[in-house]
């Protein structure tokens, strides 16, 4: 109550540049933290951290955890937890590896074009079924999510083990591997086309939202703020694409198979990697999950249930079914993450996704998802995943011992949550 009065005069005083932009201060804080981490490592590695090559690698290493982190936001927002995502990833990966290397080649023929696609759809269905089963036990049998997914953590990793009889399965299908990162990139021109489409879409979204608000007679930001925001977004997209398209393919890789890069001979062929398909996939997932969160009834019910489960129920929301839907979505995302992770490694190994549950939860939490429920953003979770991965890679590059790396990551997680709690206290939100 008292802080309400303290805030009141603020509207009269001149608003700062950032206030006019109406950007989420927490988002700004996280971007700031990320830039700081990147700059510190860049100095410590004498400029090796911020090379196109390392930024490219950092990006593709983040994708699988980031995809799952977007789903974890919904899980945590509704006051649940999922400790089984790494294990579910392993089961999906084992299924997809067996499907493309053993089962389908026998049923169809070796090298049949449909093999990778049937495999991927199958893997996503397995993920969805496992997720739905988890959700059903949590929602309808009222077993706490912590217990259901702790059990799942042990069950699914070992189901994966039995599927492959503990063997490493590979090499994976070439088309399948294009979803892993380095073996599937768009090259220079296509990357720029995608980038330009993204820029146009961003600008259209910003100004369309302004138009709709004006139509309803709501207050809108000043025009210059809107233009600055659009300019910042466009510059960020251009910068990102610019960096990825300046990572050229090493000569020895071109020499191995020039046709892959659209050249007849290796001489004079200087292709760049550009935007990886896996990153495009992450962007698509992020966009879809953000739309679900902000623009659909499902998303509204997820946040309402997280804020007050009783209120949600009394408003006629079927919170049990909602739980099933959330965990099904989480399962599908585990399947997608399994695709990216195994394709990146080019093989299925038994330990794939080990400790991912902790990375995913940490990413969501560092990204501002509150364990008490009701609060969290998709972009925050992705940024959280990126910050975690940067810390890990940066320390590896600097030559920090593995035990110390884990120690730092653990400390950062706790510190991030502490800062977040302090921030929320100050702005008066819960």
């Amino acid at each position, binding site marked *: 109550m008292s802080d309400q009065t303290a805030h009141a005069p603020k509207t009269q005083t001149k608003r700062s540049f950032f206030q006019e932009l109406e950007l989420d201060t927490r988002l700004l804080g996280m971007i700031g933290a990320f830039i700081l981490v990147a700059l510190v490592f860049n100095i410590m590695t004498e400029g090796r951290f911020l090379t196109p090559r390392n930024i490219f690698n950092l990006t593709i290493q983040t994708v699988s955890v980031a995809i799952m982190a977007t789903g974890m936001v919904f899980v945590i927002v509704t006051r649940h937890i999922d400790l089984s995502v790494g294990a579910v990833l392993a089961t999906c990966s084992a299924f997809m590896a067996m499907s493309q290397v053993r089962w389908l080649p026998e049923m169809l023929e070796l090298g049949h074009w449909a093999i990778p696609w049937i495999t991927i759809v199958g893997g996503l269905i397995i993920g969805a079924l496992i997720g739905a089963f988890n959700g059903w036990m949590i929602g309808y049998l009222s077993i706490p999510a912590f217990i259901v997914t702790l059990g799942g953590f042990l069950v699914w990793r070992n189901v994966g083990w039995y599927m492959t009889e503990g063997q490493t399965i590979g090499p994976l299908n070439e088309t399948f591997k294009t979803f892993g990162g380095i073996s599937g990139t768009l090259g220079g021109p296509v990357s720029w086309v995608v980038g330009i489409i993204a820029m146009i879409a961003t600008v259209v979204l910003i100004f369309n939202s302004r138009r709709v*608000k004006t139509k309803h007679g709501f207050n809108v930001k000043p025009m210059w703020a809107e233009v600055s925001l659009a300019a910042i977004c466009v510059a960020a997209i251009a910068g990102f694409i610019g960096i990825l398209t300046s990572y050229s393919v090493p000569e020895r890789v071109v020499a191995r198979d020039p046709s892959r890069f659209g050249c007849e001979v290796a001489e004079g062929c200087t292709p760049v990697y550009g935007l990886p398909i896996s990153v495009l996939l992450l962007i698509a997932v992020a966009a879809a999950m953000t739309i679900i969160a902000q623009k659909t009834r499902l998303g509204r019910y997820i946040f309402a249930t997280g804020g007050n489960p009783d209120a949600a129920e*009394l*408003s006629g*929301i079927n919170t049990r079914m909602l739980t099933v839907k959330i965990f099904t979505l989480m399962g599908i995302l585990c399947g997608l993450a399994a695709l990216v992770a195994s394709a990146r490694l080019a093989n299925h190994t038994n330990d794939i996704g080990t400790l991912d549950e902790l990375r995913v939860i940490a990413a969501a939490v560092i990204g501002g998802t509150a364990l008490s429920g009701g609060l969290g953003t998709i972009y925050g979770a992705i940024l959280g995943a990126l910050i975690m991965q940067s810390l890990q890679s940066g320390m590896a590059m600097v030559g920090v011992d593995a035990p110390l790396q884990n120690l730092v990551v653990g400390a950062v997680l706790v510190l991030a949550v502490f800062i977040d709690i302090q921030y929320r206290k100050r702005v008066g*939100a819960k």
Partner: protein
Amino acid sequence: MAPLVEMKNVSIAFGGVQAVDNVSISLNAGEVVGLLGHNGAGKSTLIKMLSGAYKMDSGEIFINGEKASITSPRDARDHNIETIYQTLALADNLDAASNLFLGREITNAFGFVDDDRMEAETRKIMARLNPNFKKLKEPVSALSGGQRQSVAIARAVYFNAKILIMDEPTAALGVHETAMVAELIQELKKQGLGIFLISHDTREMMELCDRVAVMKNGQMVGAERVEDVTEDDILSMIILGKNPKAAA
């Protein structure tokens, strides 16, 4: 004409506690019926069976003379029953518009929730119910008790309730806001709504209600027209659990 609502011989028990025991009560259109009784008498539980929050163990509910099966909040809503719960059923992390439309969001042609339109509608109804209400963008956790209550009331009024249940709507409010709620009840009554009102303030109930019903230990002590009883009669019904009228 059949009453708007008739609850006949309804009972519900939680474990060993018979929270509502064979209670019958009716409500007519344009009528305000007050429910009185000590804490734990069973008032909230009784109306929660009408609003679909609880499923009754036995008994029947008739709406406009027709038997209604109400087993969920959705069923109640389909009968135009709206409820303002004692513990405000608001999602604290969402803004006023999201709460007002929770479970009944306005969607656009693509099936996406239309936040701008919901905000515009919220502005309109708030201008009528509580002109001081300005904080449309903030989560309702940032609102005062009275403002939160107006969100809950707006929600019931916006969707054209025919039957309105108000469980201690003024318990958390100041004098001025309490008067506003009283005014609103009169207005809605004029529009022909039937209202169940729960409150502890006997004097207020004598002013606002057409009839008052008193409960004790899950049982109905009696329902009387306010003209026929004094405040003392009601107090003795609440305390002794006996209806002096019936005895006389």
